[in-house]
């Protein structure tokens, strides 16, 4: 079908519970997300990344504009039938909040993960399958099922929370700074999880991150936000090639790219535009072998 994917058109967003004047945190956002993409969202703190993510996830109604998911307008509901369709469409999207571990509330890990699929009225058997699959995906051991979520480690809690979203198999997955506050291994695991979901489950993934390295490594496309405006949506390579753009957005190139740039400025004959460490190492090896 031609209108599959998510379309965001002319979206403005105001926080109107503000004091004197409403605070506008999104200005005329236009964006289309195709099925199967991994998109990284970058931008300084307060640039509107989280607000945009919530609007796309169907959780914050934009003050103006439209969001369609697989052709269904999720906010412009005029009657019962449209409301049912909008709800169905919203269930295709799962959002993992920043510090998602704070949303856990059930007595056991299993019950917490099962919460969403149960709420969506899947059969008992399906719920169990979904829970098992979700735990497997995030790498939680089966014997954790009956533990209370509160005394797990930070990284484990985060995985339980992510599993709770994966359990209803959202086609579109939005993650708000999913790596923040985890140790190196925890970060690596989440990164691999996103890749795996994209490859094996064909999930479309949108993630917010402050790490240019992480975005460069796994994203196909990248969005840069500044002061509530979307200033670019392009391939990761194109964004990092544009020095001016990076400067206005206050972002840096991935470390490996900067490192190769240094080598180049020392007179070594090398192409510096590497997006991953692996790619960088290969460049260095071939420069040395000359």
């Amino acid at each position, binding site marked *: 079908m031609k209108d599959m994917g998510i379309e965001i058109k002319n979206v403005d967003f105001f926080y109107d519970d*503000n004091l004197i004047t409403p605070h506008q945190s999104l200005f005329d956002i236009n964006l289309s997300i195709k099925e199967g993409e991994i998109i990284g969202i970058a931008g300084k703190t307060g640039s509107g990344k989280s607000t945009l993510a919530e609007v796309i996830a169907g959780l914050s109604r934009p003050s103006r504009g439209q969001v369609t998911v697989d052709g269904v307008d999720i906010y412009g509901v005029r009657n019962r039938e449209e409301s049912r369709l909008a709800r169905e469409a919203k269930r295709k999207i799962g959002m993992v*909040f920043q510090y998602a571990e*704070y*949303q*856990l509330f059930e007595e056991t890990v299993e019950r917490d993960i099962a919460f969403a699929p149960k709420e969506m009225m899947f059969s008992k058997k399906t719920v169990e399958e979904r829970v098992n699959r979700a735990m497997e995906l995030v790498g939680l051991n089966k014997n954790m099922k009956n533990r209370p979520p509160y005394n797990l480690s930070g990284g484990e809690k985060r995985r339980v929370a992510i599993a709770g*979203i994966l359990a209803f198999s959202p086609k579109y997955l939005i993650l708000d700074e999913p790596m923040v506050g985890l140790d190196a291994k925890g970060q690596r695991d989440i990164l691999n999880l996103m890749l795996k979901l994209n490859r094996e489950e064909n999930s479309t993934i949108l993630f917010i991150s402050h790490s240019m390295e992480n975005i460069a490594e796994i994203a196909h496309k990248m969005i840069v936000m500044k002061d509530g405006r979307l200033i670019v949506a392009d391939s990761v390579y194109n964004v990092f090639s544009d020095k001016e753009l990076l400067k206005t957005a206050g972002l840096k190139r991935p470390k490996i790219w900067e490192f190769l740039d240094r080598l180049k400025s020392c007179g070594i004959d090398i192409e510096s535009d590497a997006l991953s460490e692996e790619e960088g190492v290969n460049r260095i090896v071939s420069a040395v072998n000359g």
Partner: protein
Amino acid sequence: MNITLGQYIDGNSVLHRTDPKIKLMLIVPLVFSLFIFDYKVTFPTYTALILFLARISKIPFKSLIISLKPVWWILAFTLLLNPFFHEGEILFSIFKISATKEGAVTGFVMAYRFALFILLSSFLTLTTKTVALTDAVEDILKPLKLVNISPHYAAMTISLAFRFVPTTIHEYEQIVKAQKSRGIYFDEGGIFRRIKNMGAIVFPLMLLTFQRAEDLSFALEARCYNENRGKRKQSRMNGNDYLAIAFITVFIICNIFLQFYSH
């Protein structure tokens, strides 16, 4: 953060310049007379007082309305439920439960009085910096020393609680969104399901709050917090303070007069 529950708005009005201690102490008789006198007296006078205070302090009307936001559901419940719990002239009935005119009036009076109370108190936080308010509370709590409680810690605790109201509201909103993204719709289903779903908000919120209390106490200890820090100079009463006291005294006397001599 931009969420407010009567957060300080900068200004230089009489209200801003009055000693926080005086403001705090004047609120007490004001609230007291609001609750004991006849609503036919207090509703017009207090409404006028609030409009007047808003005018002289240049607090936007919108900020006042916003300060009612955290209690709107209490107001709504009071208005909606009271008609069904009083005897009197029947307005209409559903399922053999009758709404009465007397009940409706009672609900309105309770809700309006409560709203006046909140509005009045919000002037305190809207025109006083948190730090100044803490100091004022501390001064007023001095007698606690007699029972071996540090007034400083007591004041600190109270003002920290105030300080975290906006944070907690923010977290509440975040948790609601997070649970919605798991497909929980809080405005749906039967009463039992709704109560059960409330748990999905209440438990994480409680946990967060306890955890923050713990973090905060560690943070304070780590910075060697103790009550002798940041002692400020004692202030004397000035013209503003006398004006404020005089004004509120006259206001209350007017209410007393209206209460006893108007019939």
